[in-house]
């Protein structure tokens, strides 16, 4: 069953098309990921879906009911976790949850029970009495997610849930998301961490410049890389000096990245290593390591969008995504 359905959704600010006719749906119980670089239209899309932004054109439905012009009824069924924690600094953790429960019209007893349950589930029971301003960034993010769940929503919107927090907390939050998914919570997740999307989401849409350029399950998207052969070389010298020579000698290869002593190359046909090794050695660049790279969602993303991963990460954050190659 489709929980959310967006049809030809558009958002325009003073002539600028922030979201340009996106179509997608989210099925009950799944984690749907919207993946794209900074400024792609992810947050604008979430804002339109949650009633925090007016819709220029198109429609959104929640469980079959159109709420394009009036989101109040739909908002009662949504939990929203923004990219930055937006709870009250002066209230403590428990008070924040109780207040958020009250905003959804929950009775006192009902919200107290739910707040205590969530504090335990999120490992925050010891910090429950501390003011929110005394929380670490990771704890703040956890409590913000708990606040999004206080009224047991039909769907949880998570906007960049691990951005700006340290690796350990990011891991905890990903595990929490997995647990919520196991319990049947429908999750709409936006992220710019490709591997995070790959690990957590069942279906993913790539959004670039306000348009969804590809959408499918992880398996469907990965099929696009079948037949792609990628190999990473670690060389005994700087590759950039011979890059032009390499491209002239091997026109069938695409250089994905080539910096200092390492180079990643790609070919859509199978090839043997020996001519390549010979080429490098003839130019005084001994090959120390040659590694076949398993095609990943990253390759699909780069192929489809033309956006270099490194650039996307640099735009967004200082922390690399989980298990991503290299460091930013």
């Amino acid at each position: 069953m489709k929980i959310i359905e967006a049809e030809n959704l558009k958002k325009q600010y003073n002539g600028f098309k922030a979201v340009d006719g996106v179509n997608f749906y989210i099925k009950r119980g799944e984690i749907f990921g919207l993946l794209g670089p900074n400024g792609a239209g992810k947050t604008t899309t979430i804002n339109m879906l949650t009633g925090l932004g007016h819709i220029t054109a198109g429609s959104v439905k929640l469980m079959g009911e159109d709420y394009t012009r009036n989101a109040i009824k739909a908002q009662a069924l949504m939990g929203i976790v923004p990219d930055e924690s937006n709870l009250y600094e002066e209230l403590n953790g428990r008070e924040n949850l109780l207040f958020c429960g009250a905003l959804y019209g929950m009775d006192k007893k009902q919200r107290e029970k739910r707040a205590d349950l969530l504090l335990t589930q999120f490992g925050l029971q010891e910090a429950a009495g501390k003011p929110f301003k005394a929380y670490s960034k990771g704890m703040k993010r956890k409590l913000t997610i708990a606040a999004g769940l206080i009224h047991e929503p039909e769907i949880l919107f998570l906007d960049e849930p691990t951005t700006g927090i340290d690796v350990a907390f990011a891991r905890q939050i990903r595990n929490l998301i997995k647990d919520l998914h196991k319990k049947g919570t429908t999750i709409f997740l936006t992220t710019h961490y490709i591997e995070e999307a790959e690990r957590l989401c069942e279906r993913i849409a790539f959004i670039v410049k306000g348009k969804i350029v590809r959408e499918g399950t992880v398996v469907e998207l990965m099929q696009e890389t079948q037949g792609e052969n990628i190999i990473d070389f670690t060389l005994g010298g700087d590759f950039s000096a011979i890059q032009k020579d390499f491209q002239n000698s091997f026109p069938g290869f695409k250089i994905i990245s080539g910096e200092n002593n390492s180079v990643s190359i790609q070919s859509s046909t199978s090839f043997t290593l020996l001519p390549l090794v010979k080429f490098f050695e003839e130019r005084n660049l001994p090959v120390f390591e040659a590694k076949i790279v398993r095609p990943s969602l990253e390759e699909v993303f780069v192929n489809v969008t033309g956006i270099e991963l490194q650039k996307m990460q640099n735009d967004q954050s200082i922390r690399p995504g989980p298990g991503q190659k290299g460091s930013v």
Partner: protein
Amino acid sequence: MKPWIAFSNILMKDMRSYYLKPPNISWGLIFPVAWTLMFFLRSPVAVEVRDLLPGVMALSILFGTTSMLAVTITFERKSRSFERLLLAPISLNLLMLAKTAGAIIFGVINAFVPVIFAAFLTSLSGINWLMVLASVVLIAITSTFLGLFIAVSVTQVFEAQTFSNFFRFPMLFLCGLFIPLSDLPSFIRPVSYALPLTYGADILKTAVSQNGVIAVPLSFFALVLFSGFLFAYSIYNVNRKWIL
């Protein structure tokens, strides 16, 4: 969904977090008292405490409501906690009424603190208390909605304070509290009649000392009109500027 639970909790949280804090008490009470004392001491003729009462009450409401509401809403916008309220499944009108209800209550309470002090200094017999209460409530509502209007017109906390003073200080001089409207130059008088506090202060003068100059029903009508306009315009601005 029970919207009244959201309404009462927003109100209670604001009362606890903002309205009972020292900065608000200083702006809402100490400043108007000091200002009035200044007039009292500088006046060449003896001034009756009772004559000063409408002024102190009106200014206590004005400063108490506008300063805090304009600052807190701007602050919540900056810290993005206001977004959480906008995402709650309640109408924008109800949300803004909940946000302003605390300031209105605080304004009404503020207005009666000078009355308590005055009771020790002079006789308060012959005052039309029903009219006082009605005017205090209406001044509180209008001033609070003025604070809301200021809050939705600025983005920074310091701008809220500056913009508040842009309205408050002219009102202080031009609303007829300390300088009678008839003594103001004729070209300034239209400005006085464009200020909501002129009507509120005049009702208070009538209720306390029977020396108001504007017909009471007209003043009540003007205050209701100002309140309706300020609230409607603020809601329009929230819709236009904050719900992108």
